[in-house]
């Protein structure tokens, strides 16, 4: 028994050490380095104290959690083999990780406002951007990850959503909350219209046609200038209201109504929560659909469409539902984009957008929803971080323009990820159907040749 306790403590310490190491690596750029505006450019300062404190806190908390929270209380039955225990612990981790991420995301604006009062606007804006891509990733995941159809024109639905709202607001003076469901419906409708001819195709042919569709939408938006405003785009798109309250200074505004001091940050925080809730809805709808027969049929379709047909599944309708649902979420995200920007033009909906969303889904691990979150943070957040590479001029001389190398570094990072994790960051697939007693057997059976540790 003492032996078990010893390994337990050793395991916990090792685990806490790994966590602390991760914080050290991740936190190096966030915490240890700091750029300030100084005369003649940016000045780099270091904050080693903060960095070490963060590492120490993570180490301590992780150790305590390992020792007292994650472990089953003494006397409770433990999974038999070492690998079984590990699988058990891992699945627990991913749930805990999910909750932590959720709590963090829910409190994010306030954390940012407390920690970075100077750059709060910039950071919340970045968080909104990341959250938009998470939502788009979850939406596209339905088609690419679940149904296994390579859609290269997802941006078309994003554009349709944005223009639906933009034009509804322009011609009919409709506000965000009314336009939002309409935009989703319109995008879904277009998903079905496009889907009918396209879904007969498979593989490469399907990808090429969706790519073309994405471009067609953009070209139509540019050339139909009487209706869409052409390259000038649509401007003056209304901001969302909070139950009829505008985020404006003065009487009748949000701040006035709640007796707060007016601040432009309120609107950003509000926008953040809108996209946060939209993203969470996307998550729950898609995660739930996966457990339902239609979602399982999507995944089966990805695996083997001939077998699907022999099971009496209507392949065309199944693909169409995937396409329409995915398009609908793209439409929601699009109308949010329109209201956030206040101005939209066809330039925002180029192929590179489709490529980025697709890259998020692929890097995250096809079909993995939590992987998409990580990939969005890494990709979108990382790209923004790379914009601020000013300190490199100190190394390479003042002529060095880091912005030019942004895409290079980014591409390199993508290649490295694909080399190390060829199936994406989260490559394990959670079964959509589990009978409770069998789960443990499965985990133990998969791991063969592992000694009994406990």
């Amino acid at each position, binding site marked *: 028994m003492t032996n078990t306790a010893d390994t337990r403590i050793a395991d916990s310490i090792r685990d806490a050490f790994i966590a602390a190491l991760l914080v050290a690596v991740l936190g190096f750029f966030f915490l240890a380095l700091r750029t300030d505006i100084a005369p003649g450019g940016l000045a780099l300062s270091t904050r080693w104290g903060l960095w070490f404190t963060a590492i120490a806190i993570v180490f301590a908390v992780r150790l305590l959690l390992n020792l007292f929270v994650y472990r089953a209380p003494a006397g409770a039955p433990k999974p038999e083999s070492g690998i079984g225990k590990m699988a058990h612990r891992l699945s627990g981790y991913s749930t805990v990780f999910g909750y932590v991420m959720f709590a963090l995301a829910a409190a994010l604006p306030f954390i940012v406002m407390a920690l970075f009062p100077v750059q709060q606007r910039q950071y919340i804006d970045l968080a909104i951007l990341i959250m938009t891509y998470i939502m788009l990733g979850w939406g596209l995941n339905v088609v690419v990850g679940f149904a296994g159809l390579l859609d290269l024109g997802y941006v078309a639905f994003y554009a349709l959503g944005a223009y639906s709202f933009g034009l509804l607001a322009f011609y009919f003076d409709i506000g965000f909350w009314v336009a939002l469901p309409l935009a989703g419906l319109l995008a879904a409708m277009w998903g079905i219209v496009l889907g009918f001819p396209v879904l007969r195709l498979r593989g490469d042919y399907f990808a090429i046609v969706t790519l073309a569709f994405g471009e067609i939408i953009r070209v139509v938006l540019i050339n139909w200038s009487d209706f869409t405003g052409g390259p000038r785009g649509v401007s003056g798109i209304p901001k969302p209201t909070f139950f009829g309250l505008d985020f404006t200074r003065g009487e009748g505004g949000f701040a006035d109504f709640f007796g707060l001091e007016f601040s432009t940050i309120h609107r950003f925080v509000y926008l953040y929560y809108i996209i946060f809730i939209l993203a969470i809805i996307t998550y729950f709808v898609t995660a739930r659909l996966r457990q339902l*027969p239609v979602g*399982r*049929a999507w*995944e*089966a379709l990805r*695996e*083997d469409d*001939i*077998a*699907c*047909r*022999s*099971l*009496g*599944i*209507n*392949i065309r309708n199944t693909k169409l539902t995937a396409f329409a649902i995915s398009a609908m979420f793209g439409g929601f995200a699009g109308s949010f984009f329109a209201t956030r920007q206040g101005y939209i033009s066809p330039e925002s909906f180029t192929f590179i957008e489709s490529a980025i969303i697709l890259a998020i889904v692929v890097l995250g691990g096809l079909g993995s929803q939590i992987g998409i979150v990580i990939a969005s943070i890494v990709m979108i957040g990382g790209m923004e971080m790379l914009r601020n590479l000013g300190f490199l001029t100190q190394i390479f001389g003042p002529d060095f323009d880091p912005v030019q190398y942004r895409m290079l570094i980014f591409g390199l990072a993508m290649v490295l990820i694909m080399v190390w994790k060829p199936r994406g960051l989260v490559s394990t*697939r959670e*079964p*959509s*159907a*589990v*009978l409770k007693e*069998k*789960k443990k*057997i*499965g*985990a133990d*059976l*998969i791991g063969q040749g592992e000694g009994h540790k406990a």
Partner: protein
Amino acid sequence: MTTGSEDLLLSVRGVETYYGKIVALRGVDLDVRRGEIVTLIGANGAGKSTLMMTICGDPRARAGTITYDGRDITGMPTHEIMRLGIAQSPEGRRIFPRMTVLENLKMGAQLVAPEHFEGDLKRIYDLFPRLKERAAQRGGTLSGGEQQMLAIARALMSRPKLLLLDEPSLGLAPLIVKQIFEVIRELNRTEGLTVFLVEQNAFHALKLAHRGYVMVNGNITMSGTGAELLKREEVRAAYLEGGRH
């Protein structure tokens, strides 16, 4: 051999199927009566699988009629045919490799009311205890025999009246083949399940089946009870000698 048509579950009359311009079936007649195990044997490329796929509506028959349960299904789309109580274990098994055994079985039960699932699952696990052990494993990690069991089990989950089996013995060890055929016999005996079996393994198939058909080059050349066919010189020469095990 004369039976009332109400006894016929599946009847194929003068069916011709083409792949482009190439003819695969040249006017095939074949009957499957309720409660029977009927096998279709023949060499590679004779058109056995094509006939099975034609019954399922893909490819469609260019001439002739296919009647199932008194209903003309010749021109129907595959997914509608499969909803009439026909289930297929396709050639090459075609299980869903990244999905677990349990998920594969759920896919089979897609068209059945969910309240039947637990009971049906238990029955399947009784027939194939291996699948119960492997329930949480991914389909692709199963052995060939287990995958074949899963393919049949998945088909059975749809509560079929007619089970179509395409070469269930393909690439499997003789012992496993025996086990699988034993289960088919059992299902037929206890539940009266009607089975149409396409096989190259003529010896086992004819021993199992009540009746058999021999197909050569897209034509049915012989038919009779399983025992009769096993005794026929032509059958022995073409399909059994040397290939027997």
